[in-house]
């Protein structure tokens, strides 16, 4: 009885151990892995007669003079190596163990050619060389993760997004001269984790062992549990894991044979990698739908122009998602539904993106939202042109928003004009707004919609968040100038609280706001505070000169608070020194709760 019990115990204790041992043997060994090329190997590529496993790479005697007892000749291929505008590593032709891997994986050498067999009698294989496919890296290594560069302190000191080599896991061995090799990531004998990886790529564990991207650990892309099951990322390839977090880097990047070589991206077109998820289905918002609207940042328009190392002042014209977003650092915008005064600094979605400051200086990390805009709409030689031809013509938006200008919308700094009585609370003289208060997707959450915040695309011209009619003879309505009325009370404007002839101009003579006012600002280098206060900068397609004794003139003159005069011809009426003054405007009439949006 005792014996039987003891036997039963030992059996029941042993059984799981035996099962585990068998499983471990199957997973951890080259036997029955894809690298088992013997005639009984599991893959489609195997020997026809040869039943040994090690012989395809190793021989105990007369091996090639390189460890470990190598049984293959090295390929003589000259490889096209990886190049990138952002790498600090010096990348050389592959050497050492990598060359050994390439003896099969560059697709040039016969698999059965081993040193212990004469060239005339190689091991007969089901395929002479590695057939085209994911295992065939070809002689073009420019679309593969770089190897053959020295990974040392010198590198990690220059590139702060690379970890110091001392703290990289010991599971990832470098070559004899501390250089990156195929074998740093891959263990050719152990396919336990798939792809012969030494560390799992789940949750980017393999990548982040060396790469330390700013803000990655807490980024949305590292933490999102959004399901990606079955999402096709590449022709014929699907993401390996079930959600964004687990796929991690692999959601966007491809380590070998990447369609976008320089950035090792899964898609050749930069925006496709983003829109693959941000088009409904995976991410919350359908950005692709916004991009498809009438006015948008047309990320699909150009390919291969954007470069992370580009000089914003001289770059060729383009826009890509990554011009405003850093996919390694993006975070959910926690205050996405609050607009205006809280929003002038960059938030989660725009963290760690370069910008151009109001002073014109380049910033590695934009601090304010407008700094992102100034990259392309400021000093850049490829900046877009404006729609309205004005007295003072300026296409450099950065100059238009200088706080020393005669007048400007308070984006880069506050403006305390005594003439601003129409503002709707909580806005008041001294408030700061952002570019995205006017230029935004028409369904942005911050404007009461249900879509993503940010100027992705809008049904309104100039990527404006609300309607803004600029055609002459527009019938006034809350809708026609919805953009302006979002901040400037329609009651106040049409009640003539500031300029006493607003109603007459806008309603009676159907003149759009845009005809007299330049919405951005008037640059001090071209204008003075007498002629261009109150954002006055006439639309020359509507406002004509008036014949005066001094000649033909189009001029506005500020003569003090809420008073001035005009000399011009408009709608057939000639004003010569036509004065106005408003003493009725005052604090009592300033703030009205005139509501047009949902978030007031």
């Amino acid at each position, binding site marked *: 009885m005792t014996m039987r019990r003891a036997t039963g115990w030992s059996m029941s204790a042993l059984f799981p151990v035996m099962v585990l041992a068998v499983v471990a043997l199957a997973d*951890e060994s080259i036997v029955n892995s894809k690298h088992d090329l*013997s005639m009984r190997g599991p893959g489609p590529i195997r020997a026809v007669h040869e039943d040994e496993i090690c012989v395809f790479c190793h021989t105990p*005697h007369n091996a090639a*003079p390189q460890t470990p007892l190598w049984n293959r000749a090295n390929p003589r291929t000259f490889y096209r190596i990886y190049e990138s505008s952002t790498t600090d590593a010096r990348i050389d032709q592959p050497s050492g163990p990598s060359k050994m891997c390439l003896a099969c994986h560059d697709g040039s050498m016969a698999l059965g050619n081993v040193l212990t067999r004469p060239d005339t009698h190689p091991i007969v294989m089901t395929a002479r060389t590695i057939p085209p496919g994911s295992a065939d890296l070809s002689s073009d290594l420019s679309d593969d993760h770089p190897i053959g560069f020295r990974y040392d302190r010198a590198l990690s000191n220059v590139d702060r997004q690379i970890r110091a080599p001392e703290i990289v896991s010991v599971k990832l061995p470098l070559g004899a001269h501390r250089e990156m090799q195929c074998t740093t990531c891959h263990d050719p004998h152990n396919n336990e984790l798939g792809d012969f990886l030494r560390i799992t790529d789940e949750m980017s564990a393999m990548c982040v062992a060396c790469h330390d991207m700013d803000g990655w650990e807490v980024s949305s892309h590292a933490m999102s549990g959004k399901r990606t099951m079955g999402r096709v990322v590449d022709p014929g390839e699907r993401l390996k894991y079930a959600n964004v977090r687990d796929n991690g880097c692999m959601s966007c990047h491809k380590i070998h044979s990447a369609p976008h070589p320089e950035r090792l991206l899964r898609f050749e077109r930069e925006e496709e990698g983003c829109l693959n998820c941000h088009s409904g289905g995976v991410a919350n918002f359908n950005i692709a739908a916004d991009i498809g609207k009438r006015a948008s940042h047309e990320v699909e328009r150009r390919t291969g122009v954007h470069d992370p190392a580009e000089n914003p002042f001289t770059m060729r014209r383009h826009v890509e998602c990554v011009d405003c977003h850093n996919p390694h650092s993006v975070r959910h915008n926690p205050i996405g539904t609050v607009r205006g005064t809280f929003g002038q600094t960059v938030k989660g979605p725009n963290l760690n993106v370069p910008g151009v400051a109001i002073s014109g200086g380049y910033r590695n990390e934009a601090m304010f939202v407008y700094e992102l805009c100034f990259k392309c709409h400021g000093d850049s030689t490829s900046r877009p042109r404006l729609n309205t031809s004005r007295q003072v013509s300026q296409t450099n938006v950065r100059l238009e928003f200088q706080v020393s200008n005669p007048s400007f919308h308070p984006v880069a700094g506050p403006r305390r004009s005594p003439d601003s009585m129409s503002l709707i609370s909580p806005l008041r003289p001294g408030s700061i707004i952002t570019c995205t208060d006017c230029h935004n997707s028409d369904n942005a959450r911050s404007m009461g919609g249900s879509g993503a915040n940010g100027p992705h695309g809008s049904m309104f011209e100039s990527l404006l968040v609300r309607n803004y009619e600029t055609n002459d003879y527009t019938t006034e309505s809350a809708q026609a100038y919805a953009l302006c009325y979002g901040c400037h009370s329609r009651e106040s404007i049409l009640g003539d609280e500031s300029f006493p002839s607003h109603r007459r101009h806008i309603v009676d003579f159907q003149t759009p706001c845009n005809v007299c006012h330049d919405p951005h600002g008037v640059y001090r280098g071209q204008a003075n505070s007498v002629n261009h206060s109150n954002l006055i900068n006439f639309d020359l397609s509507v406002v004509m000169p008036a014949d005066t004794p001094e000649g033909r003139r189009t001029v506005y003159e500020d003569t003090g608070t809420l008073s001035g005069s005009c000399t011009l011809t408009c709608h057939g009426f000639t004003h010569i020194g036509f004065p106005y003054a408003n003493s009725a405007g005052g604090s009592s009439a300033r703030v009205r709760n005139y509501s047009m949006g949902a978030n007031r």
Partner: protein
Amino acid sequence: MRPSGITVCFCVLAFAAIGGWALGGIEGSKHDFSNQDWSGGDACSVCHTATSEEPTATPLWDENADLNRTFGTPLEQSKRAGMGTIICLRCHDGTIARDTFGGAERERFVNREHPGLHTAGHGTSEHPVGVDYPRIDRGYRPASSVTASGTVQLPDGKVECSSCHDPHNMSDQKYMLVMSNTRSALCLTCHRK
């Protein structure tokens, strides 16, 4: 049910056939030099010289050779090879091999013209011999499991030629291996790959 006479007979015959196939021996093998005129006419005296009644494992030929030399191996820890290696390299290293027995002509047996183990001393081309079997290394199986079956032996805990090769060809495997290397079984006896 009792086995019938025919079954028993068949089993015996099959066993004999398998046994006959498995049982090799030096006779007729590449190590059988008995029909060479320099060999003295028998298969043993090429390696074994009977100075007394008993043949000894330590041949007495080439007294000037340095038996304690370090043979070239890829590994730093390569130490003095044991007898399981030295005896082999007497012929197979292609440098000191002399037919210095029985007063025959001096001749190199294995050299570059006769491919074999001719690069001893050139390190990385040959599997290490005369090295201690790794004790705590995840890449290797425990020595106890290697030698458990008695087929692969680690004399004094070292890897020698005789760990893998049987010069007497008793298993009748190619390259006179101690066991079949089908599915690289011999390699994987030690290597956990």
